[in-house]
């Protein structure tokens, strides 16, 4: 007798995702962009010249500099890839921070229910009312100013190189700021998921078996909510990359000599009139990355949670 092999949720989702052409192309595009950003700059394919070469500024695209050079003669492709490292990292780290906070907060609210839930969600309601960009700018400036004091410690005690210490002091506050202010939606999503799955039979079974609350919440309920969490994570990353770029564009995010896509767009805007390529190339890469992340998130939502509406 032939036994039909059942499909797991994940293999089902993978099949559905593969059928979604846009999402699948996006997935590959993203992989290529990520690999290019993190591998190419350390190969000899791209010329690395962090200090630039003024005599070679604004060079048009050529075989030596595929995308040309910037205002102080640095290879534009090299800068886009290096900037991409920072933009992608900030997006990712900030997302991880926000997911950790949002998931725990939402899970506790949903699991405890009753008064705890009411109070916790009321707090989220109030936090929702606070203007995001205003707080991000405020926090970013304040946390960055405070963390500047840690610089001697990083250089002298931890023996980090000066450049790396500057990068750490710049990036960590930025990720913290964005992550600390961006977890509300995740908390809401997880809370409603936990709230509804709490009533299911397998949880009742777990309760009657005498499992601890911690066990039930983290080993039974949350693993079954991975779908929505993954979907929302994918949709959060582009939002946070955009936030980083906005901050950097306004001059309160990544600070030169560190670079990110936001910094490049900011600098490029200054030369818009005469050297449009300086803003066009970073814009294109930036837009493609965000587009791919958004399409992938949409595709994942359809794949993992077919019932969810497309908003």
């Amino acid at each position: 007798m032939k036994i039909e092999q059942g499909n797991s949720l994940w293999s089902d989702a993978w099949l559905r995702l593969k059928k979604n052409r846009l999402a699948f192309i996006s997935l590959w595009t993203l992989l290529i962009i990520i690999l290019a950003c993190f591998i190419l700059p350390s190969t000899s394919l791209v010329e690395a010249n962090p200090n630039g070469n003024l005599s070679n500024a604004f060079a048009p695209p050529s075989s030596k500099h595929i995308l040309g050079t910037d205002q102080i003669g640095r290879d534009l492709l090299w800068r886009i890839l290096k900037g991409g490292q920072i933009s992608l990292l900030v997006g990712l780290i900030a997302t991880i921070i926000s997911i950790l906070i949002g998931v725990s907060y939402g899970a506790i609210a949903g699991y405890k229910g009753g008064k705890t839930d009411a109070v916790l969600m009321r707090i989220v309601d109030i936090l929702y009312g606070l203007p995001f960009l205003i707080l991000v700018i405020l926090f970013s400036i304040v946390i960055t100013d405070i963390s500047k004091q840690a610089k001697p410690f990083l250089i002298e005690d931890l023996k980090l190189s000066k450049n790396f210490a500057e990068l750490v002091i710049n990036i960590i506050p930025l990720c913290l700021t964005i992550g600390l202010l961006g977890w509300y939606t995740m908390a809401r999503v997880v809370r409603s998921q936990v709230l509804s799955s709490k009533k299911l039979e397998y949880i009742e079974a777990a309760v009657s078996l005498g499992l601890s609350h911690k066990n039930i919440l983290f080993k039974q309920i949350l693993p079954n909510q991975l779908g929505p969490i993954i979907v929302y994570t994918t949709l959060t990353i582009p939002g946070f990359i955009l936030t980083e770029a906005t901050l950097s564009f306004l001059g309160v995010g990544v600070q030169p000599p560190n670079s990110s896509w936001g910094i490049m767009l900011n600098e490029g805007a200054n030369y818009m009139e005469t050297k449009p390529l300086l803003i066009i190339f970073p814009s294109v890469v930036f837009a493609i990355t965000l587009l791919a992340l958004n399409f992938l998130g949409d595709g994942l939502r359809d794949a993992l949670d077919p019932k969810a509406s497309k908003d």
Partner: protein
Amino acid sequence: MLKTILDRLLQGIVVIICLLTLTFFLIRLVPGDPLTDEKAMPPQVRAENMKIFKLDKSQPVQYLYYWKTLLQGEMGISIKKRQPVSMIISQSFPVSVIIGITGMFIAVIIGIPAGIIAALKHNSLIDNGTMFLAMLGISIPTFVVGPILAKFVATQVPFLKVAGWGGPFDWILPAITLGLGTAAYLARITRAGMLDILSQDFIRTAKAKGADQKSIIIKHALKGGLVPAIAYIGPAFAMLITGSFVVETIFQVPGMGQHFVNATKERDYFLLQGMVLLFGVLIVMVNLAADILLTYLNPRLRS
């Protein structure tokens, strides 16, 4: 319904108090004070200034003084600009509001019709095309759209300027830059809302009864289908108003954005508080208005 409104109003007041308190203590976490940056201020002058701005008092006392000033209807004096905060705001606030409102207007007149058309032509080329454009609109930030419009549109159209703030013509490009992203979100939300309504039984009944397509859409579908889009307009407006910081930088518009960023950087305590207060009030009011409109449109929320 009155209870809901009162509830929201109360929540709005709590939001504003939280915002002001948070800003107040957060900005004072930065080491030093606003006067330390000023070059070579004689100790005596400095002490006098500290006294004028009550900076010599402890933070909780300063906080109470701030509320006292505020409750007397004043916002204090900018430490850096030496002008009343209310004066700086009265010059820059209208500019930010104009950009916000025109941006929202553009978002609505593009986004909602696009979403409705996409839903009516579900799964057609028009639908897919619109949704692709919408995703593009979401993914391309204002600081890419802005310079592109400035470069390729402002130089071609005679009455548009690359930068500056004179007459209503100068509102156009900043508003388009600001509104496109929101238009894209609105199109997606409108489409989803319309699709949801169009698949419901009462629409099928209306069709079965022989009502024509036009009246089904106008009389039955739109009212419910637009609810999610209207629910989004409240928070979107808040995002537009703060999002205008970027647009103000690109088109050199004298709005509140630059004041806010500079006030934070220079620790201009009272100016910062004033800016935050204004933004807070504006956002709370817009959200309240959206809530009221929503309860009016959706009878199920009225209980």
